[in-house]
C-alpha cells in the first residue's frame, strides 16, 4: 500500500514537474522598448496585463528611455545583438533602419488580414506610407500625427478677438504674423508666436516641412540632388521663418529651450499661438489647458492646404525570436484607438478614429483629422539625420543675419556632400 502511494506521489510530482518545465519552455517574454512618455507607459502596461490574461504564456517587459538617449541606446543594443523584440521608431528613421534590415516585415496574419492592401485599409490613407520601405510595411503607427495651430483664447480676448470664432483664425502666414504683432507685449514678457528653437533637427523639420510643401519647395529633387536652395525654398523661408525674426516677433532669443517640453512658452502662457500636435495638451499648465483652442495650420494657399504627417511607430526587430507573438501584441495594442487617445493623447491612425465618442470629446480632433488628409511625411533618406542637421544649421545661420539664400546654398552643398559620401 505504501509502495502504491509512493508510486502515485512520485507520478504526480513528475507530471507536475514536466508540466512546469513544459510551460517554462513555451513561455515567451517580449521585450518592448519605448521612448519615455509616462501616460504611454501606463497605457501599455495596462494593455500588456490584459494581453497576458488572454495569452498566459506571453508576458511583456517594457523599458523606456528619454527621446534622444533612447535612439542611441537602441542602436547600441541592436549592434551588440541584444535588440528588443518590439521597438518604438520615428518614421524618418525607417529608411535608415530598413536599409540595414533591422526591422521585420509586418506579419499580416497577426492583424487578421491577408494582404498589404487590407492592412492599409485598417488605417487612415497614407498612415503606413511613411513606414513602407521598398514595398515592405515595416511597422504600424502608435502615433499618426499632423500639426495644427494652438491659440490661447484669453490672449485673443485681450485684443478684442473671440478665438472660438473660426473667422478670427489666421488663414495665411501673413495673417499669423500680423496677429502675433498685436499679441506681443512691448517688454517681450509675452510673444504672439514663435518657432521651436535649438532642439533636434526633426523638431525643426516638423515645423518647416508643411511650409516647404506649401511653397512647392523640395529638399532634394527627383535625381537626388539637393534643391533646398531653389527659389521656392528661399521664398518659403524668407516669407515665414525670416519674417518673424526680422520683425522681432520671435526668434531664438525669445524662446525658452526645453527638450522635455518644446512648447514651454505656450504651455506657461508666455506665448499666444504655437504649432503643435494633438499630443501637446497634457504638457500645458492647467490655466492654458482651460484656454486653448485648436485652429488649422496657416497656409500659403488656403484653397490648397498642405500639412505634415509624422509617426512614432511600433515595429518588430528582424532579430526577434518571437516575431509572431510580438506582432500579435502590436495588433492587440494598437486596435484600442480610443484607449490610446483618452490615456495618452496619441492618434493611432486607425480608420474612423475621429468618429468615436472619445475623439469627439477631444478638443480639435476634427481639425487634426482634416489635417491628416492634406499631409505628407518629410523627405526619405538613409542619411536624414545629417541632412536635417544641415538645414537646421541654415536656419540658425539666417536667424543670426546670414542671407537666407547664402545659408541655404551651404545646406545644399552639405547635403550633396553627404549623399556623395
Amino acid at each position, binding site marked *: 500500500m505504501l509502495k502504491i502511494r509512493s508510486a502515485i506521489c512520485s507520478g504526480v510530482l513528475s507530471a507536475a514537474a514536466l508540466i512546469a518545465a513544459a510551460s517554462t519552455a513555451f513561455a515567451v517574454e517580449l521585450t518592448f522598448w519605448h521612448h519615455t512618455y509616462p501616460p504611454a507607459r501606463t497605457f501599455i502596461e495596462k494593455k500588456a496585463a490584459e494581453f497576458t490574461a488572454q495569452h498566459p504564456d506571453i508576458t511583456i517587459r517594457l523599458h523606456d528611455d528619454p527621446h534622444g538617449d533612447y535612439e542611441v541606446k537602441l542602436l547600441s543594443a541592436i549592434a551588440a545583438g541584444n535588440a528588443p523584440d518590439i521597438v518604438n521608431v520615428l518614421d524618418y528613421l525607417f529608411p535608415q533602419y530598413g536599409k*540595414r534590415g533591422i526591422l521585420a516585415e509586418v506579419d499580416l496574419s497577426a492583424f487578421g488580414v491577408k494582404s498589404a492592401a487590407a492592412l492599409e485599409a485598417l488605417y487612415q490613407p497614407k498612415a503606413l506610407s511613411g513606414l513602407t520601405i521598398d514595398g515592405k510595411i515595416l511597422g504600424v503607427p502608435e502615433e499618426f500625427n499632423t500639426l495644427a495651430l494652438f491659440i490661447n483664447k484669453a490672449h485673443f480676448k485681450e485684443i478684442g478677438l473671440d478665438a472660438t470664432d473660426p473667422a478670427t483664425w489666421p488663414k495665411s502666414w501673413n495673417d499669423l504674423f500680423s496677429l502675433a504683432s498685436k499679441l506681443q507685449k512691448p517688454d517681450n514678457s509675452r510673444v504672439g508666436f514663435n518657432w521651436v528653437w*535649438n532642439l533636434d533637427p526633426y523638431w525643426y523639420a516638423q515645423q518647416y516641412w508643411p511650409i516647404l510643401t506649401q511653397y512647392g519647395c523640395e529638399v532634394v529633387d527627383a535625381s537626388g540632388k539637393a534643391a533646398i536652395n531653389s527659389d521656392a525654398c528661399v521664398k518659403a523661408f524668407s516669407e515665414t521663418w525670416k519674417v518673424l525674426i526680422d520683425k522681432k516677433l520671435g526668434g*531664438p532669443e525669445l524662446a525658452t*529651450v526645453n527638450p522635455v517640453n518644446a512648447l514651454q512658452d505656450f504651455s506657461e502662457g508666455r506665448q499666444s499661438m504655437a504649432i503643435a500636435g494633438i499630443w501637446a495638451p497634457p504638457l500645458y499648465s492647467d490655466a492654458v489647458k482651460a484656454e486653448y483652442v485648436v485652429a488649422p495650420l496657416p497656409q500659403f494657399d488656403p484653397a490648397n492646404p498642405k500639412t505634415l504627417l509624422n509617426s512614432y511607430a511600433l515595429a518588430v526587430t528582424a532579430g526577434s525570436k518571437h516575431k509572431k507573438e510580438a506582432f500579435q501584441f502590436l495588433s492587440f495594442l494598437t486596435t484600442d484607438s480610443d484607449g490610446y487617445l483618452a490615456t495618452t493623447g496619441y492618434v493611432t491612425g486607425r480608420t474612423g478614429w475621429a468618429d468615436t465618442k472619445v475623439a469627439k470629446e477631444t478638443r480639435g480632433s476634427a481639425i487634426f483629422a482634416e489635417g491628416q488628409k492634406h499631409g505628407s511625411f518629410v523627405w526619405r533618406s538613409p542619411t536624414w539625420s545629417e541632412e536635417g542637421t544641415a538645414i537646421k544649421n541654415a536656419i*540658425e545661420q539666417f536667424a543670426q543675419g546670414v542671407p537666407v539664400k547664402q545659408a541655404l546654398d551651404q545646406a545644399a552643398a552639405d547635403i550633396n556632400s553627404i549623399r556623395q559620401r
Partner: protein
Amino acid sequence: MRIGFNARLGVAGWGIAFAVPALVYIMLFQLYPILFSFYISLHDYDLLSDPVFVGFKHFANLASDRAFLASARITIFYVAYTIGPVLLLSFAIAWALTRVQLSRPYWQTLLFIPSVLPIVSVALVWKLMFNFPGPINATLRGLGFDPLPWLTYGAYAPWALVIMSWWHATSYYMIIFLAGFLSIPKDYYEAAAIDGASGLQVLRFVTLPAMRPTIALVLVLSTVNGLKTFAFQQIVTDGGPASATQIMTLLIYKTSFSYLDMGRASTYSVVLFIGIFAISLLQIWLMRDRHD
C-alpha cells in the same frame, strides 16, 4: 637563506597578482578600444553591418571635411581661451590661499566646490543663467548694457562656454597649485628675504622656478581636459547655434550615434588622440627642467 629566497619569490608573485587585474582592465577598457578605433578608422562601418575596409579614405577626406575643419577650429578656440585664464586664476587664488592664515581649510573647501558638483547640474544652471531672460542679462541691463543672445548667436555662444569652463576648472587646478605652493621649502623665502628680494623678485626667482613641475602638470592636464571636454557643449548648446560650439568630441559623438558613420568618427578620434598626445609631449618638453 631559504626563507629569503622564498620571500623574494613571494614578493614577485604577489606583485604580479596585484598588477594583473589592473593590466587586464587597461588592456580591455583602454588599450583595446584605442586599437579598435584605429582599426575602424580604416573601414566603413555603420554599427549594424560588417566593417568594409576602405584604407585611408577617411583620413584623405579630412582636408575637405567642412564639419571636421570647423570643429577643429572651435576646439582650438575653446582650449586656447580656457587654459590661459584658468591657469592664471587658479595660480592666483592658490597663492592667495597660502597667505590666508585664518580658516584656510574652510576657504579651500568652499573654493573647491565647483569641482565636486555634478557637471550636468552645473551645466543646466549655467544654461539658465545665460538664457536671454536670465540673470546674466538682467545684470547687464541693470548696468545699462544691452542684453546679449549668449546661447543663440554664434558670436557669443563659444564665449559663454569658455566662461563656464573658467568657473568650473579653476577650482580643480587651484588645489593642484596649492599643493605645489605648500611643498616649496620655507627656507627659500627666508633666504630671499635676508637678501632683500622684492615681492616680484621672489615670484620671479623663487616661486616660479620651484613651481615649474606643477605648472607643467597643470598645463598638460588643462590642455588634455580642454580637448576632451564634452558635457558643457552637449548639455548647454548641443553644438549650436549652427554648429558654432560643436567641439571635436561632440562631432565624434554625433557622427557615431546620429549619423551611424563609425569609420569617420573613429578617424576624428584618432586625429584627436594624436593631437592630444603631440601637444602633451610638446608641453612637457617645453616645461622640462633644463638644469637636469
